[in-house]
């Protein structure tokens, strides 16, 4: 879902940088306040793993492929959507500057879509489902799937505003492809990884929101 530079006029690309910047700064502040010495290896391992998995495009039929984004997975493990924003920002910087995957001028839009939108939608869907006593695997699956789908729809709207996509066909095509990519590439992989970590290192997955009901509701 990496938008290339040519898909968006510079003036609009800059607007998405302005929109993404506060989230990037908040994600740095999250690292300052929440990331302790013992969590640094987890952050580094997740960042490397997300970069690698994004290189693995899975065929979904219709002559199309897609790969995992991973913001929801990172957010669920580290307990904040800002962790997802942080990891996706690092990954997108390397992808854009080193591999020409996703443009540089449109990187703000890519960070907004894949880091912020998929991270926030994915994480808070997960939290709401967990609070309704849905299993961790099912919550992670639905959260990650929905996060990817909503971020694809947001991309379609941005490309409509950019004059690149027509609105309804854009939403339909992006929605259809990412419904499937989100199911296989995002939902299933996220659920499998979360289940594996839950079995081997249950202490690693942040679930403080389950015990701090009042605080969570207020936030």
């Amino acid at each position, binding site marked *: 879902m990496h938008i290339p530079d040519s898909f968006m006029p510079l003036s609009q690309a800059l607007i998405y940088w302005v929109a993404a910047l506060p989230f990037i700064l908040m994600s740095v502040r999250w690292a300052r306040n929440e990331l302790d010495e013992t969590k640094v290896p987890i952050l580094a391992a997740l960042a490397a793993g997300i970069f690698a998995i994004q*290189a693995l495009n899975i065929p979904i039929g219709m002559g199309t*492929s897609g790969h995992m984004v991973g913001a929801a997975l990172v957010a669920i493990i580290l307990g904040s959507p800002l962790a997802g924003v942080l990891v996706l920002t690092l990954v997108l910087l*390397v992808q854009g500057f080193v591999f020409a995957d996703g*443009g540089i001028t449109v990187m703000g839009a890519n960070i907004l879509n894949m880091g912020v939108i998929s991270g926030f939608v994915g994480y808070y869907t997960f939290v709401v489902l967990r609070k309704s006593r849905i299993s961790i695997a099912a919550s992670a699956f639905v959260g990650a799937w929905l996060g990817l789908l909503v971020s694809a729809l947001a991309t379609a709207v941005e490309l409509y505003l950019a004059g690149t996509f*027509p609105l309804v066909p854009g939403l339909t095509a992006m929605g259809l492809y990412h419904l499937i990519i989100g199911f296989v590439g995002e939902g299933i992989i996220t659920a499998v990884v979360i289940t594996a970590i839950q079995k081997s290192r249950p202490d690693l997955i942040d679930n403080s929101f389950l015990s701090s009901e009042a605080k969570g509701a207020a936030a």
Partner: protein
Amino acid sequence: MSDTMSGNQNMKFLYAGIAIALLISVLAPFLASSDPDGLESAAMDIVDEAKLTAMEEVAPAVESPMPDYAIEGMGKTGEVAAIVAGTLIVLVIGFAFGKLTKK
């Protein structure tokens, strides 16, 4: 769990993570589908062909050393090297960033 204990456990997680990431990096050039991704497919479905060709001919704003996860003239070996390099770069940046910003 004490900090030292979870610290050691987390280093194990890091090593396991690096091993899995490198395994995926090495396999990706052979396993990954070369079909266009969701965004590219959508563009091909709904954007006028001439307009799409014109957009694709626009050079990226910044030249990249390894465009499309490949090294020119090195085939699959170059692709493996490119993705492994990318994984290691992200690993180092992630680790260094974490060390510098942690509370």
